[in-house]
């Protein structure tokens, strides 16, 4: 190991462990400054009895010499302290010959030799929990680490990190107490989720900056999963290299990096099924209506496997949901789909579990997500051109589809108002507004709509034949307010008249369906929506940040969506009544409309997945018990901790900071709150962990290139290497310097006293 600010002379090498502390040498100027200041205070006195000062002059010269010597001594004393703070290192140039360190056999007790600062990084990803025989890689890593720590020379300090998606310190400081290290390793939590070893290395470097020993090591124990090492994230690794290089060039001691790759048995013929994350069409679903849950089962093992999958809602198995999955070929993947109905509104926890006793990795046999079910979603239908009779108006079919008259507890509470009555008052608590054939909006109406969007609501614009092109085509409206997803162009076709024979000018094209709403209605050989024909539509030109969710077979966009803050705006090219096409008669019209309306109503943050470590903030409609109170938050580990519950206007907000663990967090509101169940929040599991495979040799070599990283698949051999590398043979000598400084301080006190006595302090005392 090279030393910063090092030198080599007469068979000895030396350097400084903390050269930045050399700035403290400036303190040597303090005695000089005091001397100069006291000189400045000298007064001039006219004196007659000069002849008696002649001897004094000589005595003074002697005293001056003594003073200068004393001042030099004091400067030297401060210099010594500063030098000790810079932690100098010294040792023979050929340490191998001078102080050989033999590799101790495992379990032979503490090694003699140079003490070191060592950071142990345990890969905490879920794959470390894979059952291999009667143990797991995690257990092997802990056992091996404990054995290594036992063998470290006396004076060594150890810190322990658990590398997860967010690095968790098990011992966040370098600790000299082996008992504490042993205890931390023993109490290491079970592996779960993903791992970020690059972040753990960065944290290790940071911890080692506070080290005192000259020799420094980082020891990573991993199963070599690519998902933990992330070799593809070259920018992060480059940053880490930069951090290492800058520490080295700044003169700080840099560590050796040792990687123990705990191998997996490759000959055992086992299947390993793992679930991918659950995918929902949307995070807000109507209570009582079917909900589709999609995922896939991967076989990460090397033999075919078969599993039984089951769906759980709020930890309760859904009757009849058990499915047989497989057989899945080795490294193969099988899609999995569940349908269920959430009967109660509120937050729900959906889990899919694989049932098998022979799976080697239990951690990936479950996948979970959260969903919110709503009942009676308030929707405002704005009728721009009310019809003369039944189902003649542009919103009549919408209303019938969303809120059937015979349904006592509809999923959507739709209310229709004519355009002139659209106002902040009529909007009320509506979460979605549908503007059907609305010619134009005046300013207060526009503001009322924008308020709904700002609150995370949705807007669906359905064109009519009499739109005001000045309003919808207004550049200012398009650019400044920015909530229109498209500019409206000329129309195509003819609206069906009462006794006419309309001509279909376009059909929906299922191949163009995209986004989270449409694909569910475009699957299969003959999706019903593909049969829907349009008699009339307007040509839309999407704005730059809008997304076309569906097109017509003419190629023109049919449904365009645009996100706006927390809210969403969608625009259709055709109408949703019988005059504009056959859509209202389509079998998928009602489910599609519900899906679209719930999608638009879903606020951006309602079902968002939080990142590990990110502060969780959940807005609730329920009022808080007081301005600031506490709620119980149950972590994925099952621990009950406290979260803040703050009052926010009519509603409230729950805040919780300690979200390092990926999984589902359960916020339990007091019983006084009228809410059917707890609130579930998802903290993202590492998508990388789903990536199978271990680092190959080329990737390992690439990671180890450019810095002293040693990768070894045999942990026992690695332990020998770690303990046998002499590491430059230099030893810290700061303790000796501090002792020397203390000795110097005693001498300084003696010298000062002697000088004071020789100056006749006692004579002065006699006089008084």
């Amino acid at each position, binding site marked *: 190991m090279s030393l910063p600010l090092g030198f080599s002379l007469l068979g000895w090498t030396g350097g400084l462990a903390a050269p930045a502390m050399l700035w403290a040498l400036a303190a040597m100027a303090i005695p000089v400054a005091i001397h100069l200041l006291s000189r400045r205070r000298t007064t001039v006195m006219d*004196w007659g009895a000069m002849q*008696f000062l002649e001897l004094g002059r000589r005595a003074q010269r002697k005293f001056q010499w003594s003073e200068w010597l004393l001042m030099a001594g004091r400067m030297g004393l401060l210099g010594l302290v500063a030098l000790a703070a810079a932690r100098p290192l010294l040792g023979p140039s050929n340490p191998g010959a001078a102080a050989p360190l033999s590799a101790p056999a495992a379990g032979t007790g503490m090694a003699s030799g140079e003490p070191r600062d060592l950071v142990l990084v345990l890969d905490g990803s879920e794959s470390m929990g894979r059952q291999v025989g009667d143990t797991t890689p995690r257990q092997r890593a802990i056992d091996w680490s404990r054995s290594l720590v036992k063998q470290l020379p006396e004076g060594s300090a150890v810190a322990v990190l658990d590398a997860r998606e967010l690095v968790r310190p098990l011992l966040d400081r370098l600790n000299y107490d082996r008992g504490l290290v042993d205890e931390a390793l023993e109490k290491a939590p079970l592996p779960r989720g993903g791992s970020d070893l690059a972040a753990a290395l960065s944290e290790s470097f940071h911890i080692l900056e506070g080290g005192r020993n000259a020799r420094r090591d980082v020891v990573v124990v991993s199963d070599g999963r690519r998902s933990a090492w992330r070799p593809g994230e070259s920018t992060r690794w480059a940053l880490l290299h930069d951090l290492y290089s800058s520490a080295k060039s700044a003169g700080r001691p840099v560590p050796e990096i040792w990687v123990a790759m705990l191998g997996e048995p490759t000959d055992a013929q086992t299947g390993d099924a793992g679930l991918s994350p659950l995918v929902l069409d949307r995070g807000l679903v109507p209570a009582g209506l079917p909900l589709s849950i999609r995922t896939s089962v991967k076989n990460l093992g090397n033999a075919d496997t078969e599993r039984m999958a089951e769906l759980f809602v709020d930890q309760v198995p859904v009757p009849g949901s058990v499915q047989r999955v497989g057989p899945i070929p080795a490294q193969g993947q099988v899609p999995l789909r569940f349908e269920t109905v959430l009967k109660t509104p509120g937050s729900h926890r959906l889990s899919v579990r694989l049932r098998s006793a022979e799976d080697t990795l239990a951690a990936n046999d479950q996948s979970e997500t959260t969903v919110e079910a709503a009942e009676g979603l308030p929707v405002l239908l704005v009728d721009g051109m009310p019809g003369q009779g039944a189902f003649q108006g542009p919103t009549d079919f919408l209303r019938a589809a969303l809120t059937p008259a015979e349904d006592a507890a509809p999923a959507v509470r739709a209310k229709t108002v004519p355009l002139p009555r659209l106002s902040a008052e009529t909007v009320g608590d509506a979460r979605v507004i549908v503007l059907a054939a609305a010619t134009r909006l005046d300013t207060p109406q526009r503001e009322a709509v924008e308020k709904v969007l700002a609150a995370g609501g949705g807007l669906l614009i359905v064109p009519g034949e009499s739109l005001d092109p000045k309003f919808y085509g207004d550049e200012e409206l398009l650019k400044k307010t920015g909530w229109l997803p498209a500019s409206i162009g000329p129309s195509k076709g003819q609206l069906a008249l009462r006794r006419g024979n309309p001509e279909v000018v376009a059909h929906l094209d299922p191949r163009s369906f995209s986004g989270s709403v449409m694909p569910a209605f475009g699957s299969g050989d003959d999706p019903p929506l593909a049969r829907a024909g349009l008699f009339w539509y307007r040509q839309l030109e999407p704005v730059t940040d809008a997304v076309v969710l569906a097109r017509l077979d003419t190629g023109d966009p049919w449904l365009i969506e645009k996100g706006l803050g927390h809210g969403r705006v969608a625009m259709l090219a055709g109408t949703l009544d019988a005059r504009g096409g056959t859509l209202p008669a389509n079998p998928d019209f009602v489910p599609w409309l519900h899906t679209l309306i719930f999608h638009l109503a879903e606020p951006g943050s309602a079902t968002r997945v939080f990142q590990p470590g990110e502060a969780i903030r959940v807005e609730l409609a329920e009022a808080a018990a007081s301005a600031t109170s506490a709620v119980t938050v149950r972590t994925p580990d099952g621990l009950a901790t406290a979260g803040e519950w703050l009052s926010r206007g009519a509603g409230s907000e729950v805040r919780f900071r300690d979200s390092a663990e990926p999984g589902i967090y359960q916020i339990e509101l007091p019983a006084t709150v009228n809410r059917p169940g707890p609130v579930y929040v998802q903290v993202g599991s590492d998508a990388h962990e789903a990536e199978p495979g271990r680092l190959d040799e080329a990737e390992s070599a690439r990671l180890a290139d450019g810095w002293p990283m040693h990768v070894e698949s045999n942990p026992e051999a690695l332990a020998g290497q770690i303990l046998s590398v002499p590491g430059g043979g230099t030893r810290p000598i700061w303790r000796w310097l501090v002792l020397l400084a203390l000795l110097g301080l005693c001498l300084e006190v003696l010298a000062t006293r002697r000088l004071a006595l020789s100056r006749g302090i006692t004579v002065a005392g006699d006089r008084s």
Partner: protein
Amino acid sequence: MDTNSRPAPGNSPFDPSTLARYGRLELLSRLVVEGVMSGLHKSPFKGFSVEFAEHRQYGPGDEIRHIDWRAYGKTDRYFVKEFEEETNLRAYLVVDTSGSMGYAGRTASKLEHARQLAAALAYMMIKQRDAVGLATFDTEVRSLVPPRTAPGHFSVLCNTLERAEVGGETPLSQVLHKMAGRIQRRGFVIILSDGFDNLENLVSALRHLRHRKHEVLFLQVLAPEEEEFPFRSPVQFRNLERGDDLVRLDPAAVRKTYLEKFQAHCRGLAEQLRAMRADYHRVSTAVPPDQVLLNYLAARAGGSRSGEARV
């Protein structure tokens, strides 16, 4: 002058140090001397010529043997006879005006003190009709006023004293040698100086004076700071006799040496003067001139020729 009405020394309504500021040396010395005389029971200086001059009323301090009993018989009041005194005492006041005499610490300067003391002595001696002369010097003998007894002579002396200013470096011994050569008639030489000179040379000069049969009184005028060297913080000492001579010293470092050397010098001077039967008194500028005079006269009346006792 009615000496009975004079207050005791030290209680004078005219503080001599206050008057000194006005340079009225004549008045000052009168006050000092009258104050001193009123405290004595016996006149210290005895005239020996007995040519009758006049009667005057008896007062404290007058000797009983001088009461004219015949006059008492006639008038029933006490009168003493006053005589025209003849004197053969010729006193020379030698006031050192060298640079070192200019030192003034927390008191008046040494020269000022010497000046007041010289004027008081002159007044006292002229009053008893002794002839008093004055020599001031720095590098040279600055002025030499020949001794006279006339009452008006006192003013001349005072004027000369008032004009005296501190000058440069003085080899006191040289000046005294010159004085010894100049003064023809045997006299009484009173030296007011700090005596900061080479001790050997100084003693040699004093011996020269004694050899010429002069009575010698050496009043060594010293400032308290010179005797105690009380300085603590570092000081740059500038030679009063040679302005370019500067020395930066830590007083604490040199105090011991200084005091040893200073005491040795003073002790040596006193011993040498005692050995040559000359009179020596150390005078501190911290002690008022009247007190100095009183102490000196008391010591003289007691027969002490010389001593290191401070007066």
